[in-house]
């Protein structure tokens, strides 16, 4: 709908709804009727125009939220100096690291087998369960179920992240957790009766990771793709995204590991809660104002509530984090 469709709108004053000088000889009631009609037409036009603007803005913001951090991590991988993370302006050491040493051994030994196995199992599940699910279960019921699950997960992560950020729950010592898990897995692998066989522990860990994350993607792609009747293109986009994420992950794994776990969980918790609530509403038949753009408003609301809760809880009592920090050795504090 364009302004040209209005017909009677001929001046900027008309377009903004200001009263205009009546034509000579026109009567009062006729003027009033024309003004009402114009206001109605303008009202009818404003909403589609808003919807037309809101949708691209929503996708632009969503893309920026994903593309900008990915681009920053990629640039950081080849140019650590740019982000004050190292001395080199340009280096390929991270790229070499991804395809040499222990990472390369793990990739060739067990990870590719487990990834392929997990993808095969997912494909079977999608064919056996997903396709009948789409055809026989109403899409709105699927949206409510998936939305409710996202909401449970999102609220749980958000709660823990708020408590950790405000110091009422101890932060994970990520280095310690990583070292303990690696040692445990290494012990299990070395105690295997036939060490020359393929790494069963590595297979299990990588299989579970790919399968669980893949299942989440499948649920989202099936729900979104089926609701728009474009399952093919949604699946193709998900496949392309998997390749891009794998490439970025291989390149910037080291940099990503330096992002605090709690920060990631906080952001993901806000996103999951917002998407979950939106889908529950959509599935139940609620029409959110601005359609998809309502997600951004929900993200804003939950972000504000989260920040406010953290700030409020920080003032309430001496925090666990302060106590933990005080007890930490100097190296870890740095």
């Amino acid at each position, binding site marked *: 709908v364009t302004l040209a469709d209005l017909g009677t709108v001929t001046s900027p004053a008309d377009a903004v709804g200001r009263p205009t000088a009546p034509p000579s000889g026109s009567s009062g009631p006729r003027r009033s009727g024309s003004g009402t009609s114009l206001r109605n037409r303008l009202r009818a036009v404003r909403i589609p125009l808003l919807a037309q603007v809101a949708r691209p803005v929503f996708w632009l913001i969503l893309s920026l939220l994903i593309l900008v951090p990915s681009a920053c991590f990629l640039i950081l991988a080849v140019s650590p100096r740019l982000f004050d993370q190292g001395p080199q302006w340009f280096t390929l050491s991270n790229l070499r690291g991804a395809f040499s040493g222990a990472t390369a051994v793990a990739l060739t030994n067990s990870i590719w087998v487990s990834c392929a196995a997990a993808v095969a199992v997912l494909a079977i599940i999608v064919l056996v369960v997903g396709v009948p699910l789409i055809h026989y279960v109403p899409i709105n019921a699927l949206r*409510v179920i998936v939305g*409710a699950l996202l*909401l*449970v*997960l999102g*609220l*749980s992560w*958000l*709660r*823990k992240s*708020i*408590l950790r950020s405000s110091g*009422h*729950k*101890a932060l*994970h010592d990520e280095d310690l957790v990583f070292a303990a898990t690696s040692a445990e897995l290494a012990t299990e692998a070395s105690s295997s009766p036939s060490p020359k066989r393929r790494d069963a522990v590595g297979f299990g860990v990588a299989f579970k990771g790919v399968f669980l994350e893949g299942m989440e993607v499948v649920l989202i792609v099936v729900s979104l793709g089926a609701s728009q009747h474009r399952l093919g293109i949604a699946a193709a986009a998900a496949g392309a995204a998997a390749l891009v994420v794998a490439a970025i992950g291989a390149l910037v794994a080291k940099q990503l590991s330096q992002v605090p776990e709690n920060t990631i969980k906080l952001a993901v918790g806000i996103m999951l*809660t917002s998407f979950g*609530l939106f889908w*529950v*509403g959509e*599935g*139940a*038949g*609620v*029409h*959110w*104002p601005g359609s998809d753009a*309502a997600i951004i408003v*929900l993200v804003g*609301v*939950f972000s504000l*509530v989260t920040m406010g*809760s953290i700030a409020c*809880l920080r003032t*309430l009592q001496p925090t*666990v984090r302060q106590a933990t920090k005080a007890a930490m050795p100097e190296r870890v504090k740095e």
Partner: protein
Amino acid sequence: VKALSRGVRAFGLFWWDFLVGDTPELLIAVIMIVALALLLRHHHDIVIILLPVITVLFLLVSTFRGRQQDGTGPNH
């Protein structure tokens, strides 16, 4: 049979931990949100305000409840 029962038990425990765990109030909140969304779906003006408000309310209640419990609780 033993492996199957172990698998079923592990599956059940996973879902119990995922849905209930140490925050049963969040599951109640989600059930309430779904029920309200279904019941009030024709009252758009009310429901678009009510759903976020209830979500925020339960999040705050659960967080403040967690504040009293945690610090000494399990670190997961």
